[in-house]
């Protein structure tokens, strides 16, 4: 069995079980952070990127935005500030995610 698959056999069930537990027993902030981690795990590219270093930096940057936004919204924020953070974050991410994807898209046949 390849080492990668061995690692997957540990990580994937751990994340799956982890989600099952978190959604049932953990406070909302933990569930939100777990959701962010799951999303970014799924966003690990399956093919090499044009500039791997920049792609990694971009991935970390996007993860940071999502995580900060999630933590703010699950920290008891309410009222007009909560609305501004919610909608403002959505709009910011709407710009950032497609842009970073397009910039790191591999040219040629790098599958």
């Amino acid at each position, binding site marked *: 069995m390849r080492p990668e698959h061995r690692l997957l056999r540990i990580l994937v069930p751990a994340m799956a079980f982890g989600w099952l537990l978190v*959604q049932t027993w953990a406070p909302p902030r933990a569930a939100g952070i777990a959701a962010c981690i799951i999303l970014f795990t799924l966003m690990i590219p399956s093919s090499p990127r044009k500039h791997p270093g920049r792609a990694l930096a971009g991935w970390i940057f996007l993860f940071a935005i999502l995580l900060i936004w999630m933590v703010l919204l699950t920290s008891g924020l309410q009222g007009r500030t909560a609305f501004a953070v919610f909608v403002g974050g959505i709009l910011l991410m709407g710009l950032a995610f497609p842009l970073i*994807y397009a910039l790191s898209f591999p040219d040629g046949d790098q599958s």
Partner: protein
Amino acid sequence: MLAIWGWKTGKGLESFFVASRRAGPILAGLAGSAAGLSAFVFVGGPGLFATVGIASLWLIASAPLTGTLQCLAVGEPILRHIRSRPALTIPGLIAARWGEGWPRGISASILLLGSLATLAVQIKALAILGNTLLPFPGWALAAGVITLTLAYAATGGMQPGLPIEALQGLIMSIIALLLSAIALTRAEGLASATTILGELRPELLDPMASGHGGSYLSLFLLFAVGTCAQPHYLQKFLMLKDRKSLRLLPAVSTAALLTILSIWVGFGLAGGALAARGALHFENADALAPALLRSLENPALLIAALIAILAAVMSTSATLLNLVAAAFSIDFPAAFGRGSAPVKLTQARLATLFAAAVAGSLALASGKGVIRLGILGWGLLTAGFLPVMVLGMRRSEISRKAAIAALLGGPSVYFLLEICQSRGFLLKSEPGLSGAAIGFILLTLWKPAGPEEKAEE
């Protein structure tokens, strides 16, 4: 005209089911957003906002990242696969990966159930719209719109369907933005509406919905990862002309999504603020959008809203009808070993008509609201397809038996949880995500594929 053009030019299965694989990022992005967003957004969404507040935004908060997520998690692997093994359907893609028979049959069954539930949502939303907004019975509107959709969906399939959906996506974007702006103006502006809610209904400006935030966060994740499992989203990847189209696809689909979803915030916020002041009355969440439209007292806006809602319903319905037609005419026969028999377009067209009839019956018989029915379909498809699409397509070690186990296990857990929750048990476990989690566990812990199985692939 497009239906006639589709009938004349669409002579083969590739044109009927995947629009001859000629779509670029703009066509696929606009059409994908239109097909993915439906009456759920226009009828159910604003009503949910007005009743639970900004917590309802968790259902759409993943919109800025789903375009990118889809391309990374499933789009790139799908395009790699179909280069060597072209597939016309998602079950066909699964069969190309793991062989014919059970994988195809089970995935076609999941697709059928989930797609019919989602199609029933569209018909139900049309019936509500007809009953609340127009001077004739809702079922008549639903029947008329579905007939119009069938005119091009059953004749040319996706050949005319794809450009029509792209146009519908553009129309939805423009009208949604316009209506949101007008509704917020009616409520005296964004700042005023949020101030009113803050004073009169402060619970509506709580992202955690007064302690119920956990379930909304589950829905956030469900709607985010679920985009990688919905056949009506994934089908667009089968239509792309080349891999380079993926570069701009997230930009186009995200822009379209966010502009269309502005109606959820604009109408919901304006409707909620007006209702808090006593200036707007509606019987239930689904009735908010029609009530707000009537209150604007402008026939042109009413017509514009109707056009946008009809575009939303028709775009989603056309894609779903096509998927169900493919399941009946291609996937089930292939799964039962009759894949070598030539498929005639007439079969596909008749299957399209049959799908509409079944979905219509389900819509009439179901007592559930639009939002609830929408979540049911989405959750089932997520539980069934997410593990195999996200992990199975990328890893050659995932065996045929593991894939079958995941395809069966995920939906089984999903239905079990739905039954338990209808009786008041296990209410905190989101069924779609829980089913998908079990699917992922089965997929990875099952014995990996041996060298012979990998060689066959």
